[in-house]
């Protein structure tokens, strides 16, 4: 307890003024979460814009909180939303139930469902927090076309799945750009 103790205290405060600020300046600087952050879901697309979801409901079965509702529909030659027989006719995720565990992502056989880094989801009513297919579908990238349409790439199904991304690149997708959404995580 010396005379200089109060001054020492101010010294601590003064020295902190020249150090890096620890506080995150959130609303001005958007925080970048970890690469595998479990944020909002995304329904991915094939390189020609068809949906990857085949409406199998495995995500809904895997969900421990019963947050996902899927209703499958049958593709016809006139109206095709996904390659193959079935597509997700109705797809809803209730974000007031979703606990972000990622079991749905693991369950998905076509990698149609992945999670994004988006996290600013607060809203003032429960209705808006049930996200439907329109909210969840990935944006159309260059070279993609809004379904329903035929399978644009490849000669047969095998060709479509195996060589699809390369063929899309040949058809005007700029080099270096992503051709199919949901690919990034698979690459990592």
């Amino acid at each position: 307890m010396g005379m200089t103790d109060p001054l020492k205290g101010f010294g601590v405060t003064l020295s902190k003024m020249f150090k890096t600020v620890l506080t995150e300046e959130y609303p001005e600087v958007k925080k970048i979460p970890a690469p595998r952050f479990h944020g909002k879901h995304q329904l991915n697309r094939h390189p020609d814009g068809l949906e990857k979801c085949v409406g199998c409901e495995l995500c809904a079965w895997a969900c421990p909180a019963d947050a996902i509702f899927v209703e499958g529909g049958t593709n016809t030659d006139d109206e095709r939303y996904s390659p193959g027989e079935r597509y997700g006719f109705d797809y809803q995720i209730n974000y007031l139930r979703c606990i972000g565990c990622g079991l749905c992502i693991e369950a998905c056989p076509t990698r149609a469902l992945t999670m994004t880094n988006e996290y600013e989801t607060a809203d003032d009513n429960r209705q808006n927090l049930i996200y439907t297919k329109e909210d969840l579908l990935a944006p159309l990238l260059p070279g993609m076309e809004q379904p329903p349409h035929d399978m644009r790439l490849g000669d047969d199904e095998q060709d479509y799945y195996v060589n699809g991304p390369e063929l899309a690149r040949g058809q005007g997708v700029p080099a270096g750009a992503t051709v199919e959404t949901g690919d990034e995580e698979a690459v990592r």
Partner: protein
Amino acid sequence: MGLEESLPNGILLANVEKLVNWTRKTSMWPATFGLACCAIEMMTVGGSRYDIARFGMERFSATPRQADLMIVAGRVTNKMAPVLRQIYDQMPEPRWVLAMGVCASSGGMFNNYAVVQGVDHVVPVDMYLPGCPPRPEMLLDAILKLHAKVMDEPINGKRAAEQVERGHRTELTASSEKYAPRRGSQRRMAERQQNAQRREMGAEGELGAAGIESLPPGGSRANGNTNGQDRDEISAGR
């Protein structure tokens, strides 16, 4: 009489409304209602890293009588529901409720006999915040959205009727967009901090704001894909 008659209808009242709402939103004292794991995130927001004092909310009170905002953090059991209601009743008006986390909002994964399926069965909720638990930024985002709602609140019955007539609903934009830095120097500083965060996460130039995965539906991809070259090679080899 006087000036008010010559002015367009409601001009003075609107300004008082704004002033009152501004004072309410800039010193909104939260009452903690930490019930489970979400409370840990709520305490983090009160700490130095997220520092809720930036929004005039540092006084997390244990007493409801000096609180304006109840943050219900965690699952509410049937046994806790009367307590929650009593605490809410003890708060002075105006008061707001923020349901933090999926359990408080809708019962979450606890769809059973013991847990109330959403605190809106017990008290009126102004803001729902999904997440299990929501990260501190999400709580700050919800609080800022609530601030936007408070700023739009009518001051009396007449103004409330006017708002209903207009069908007014507060626009809830994501806080990082709403408070995005406008000036170039501030923007550069923000980008520097975000790059530091990416380095910290071990995802330099790969994900986050620049990645396609974080874009909203229909959003532009102006600065997307900094790591496109690598991806290109790998997907070509598939």
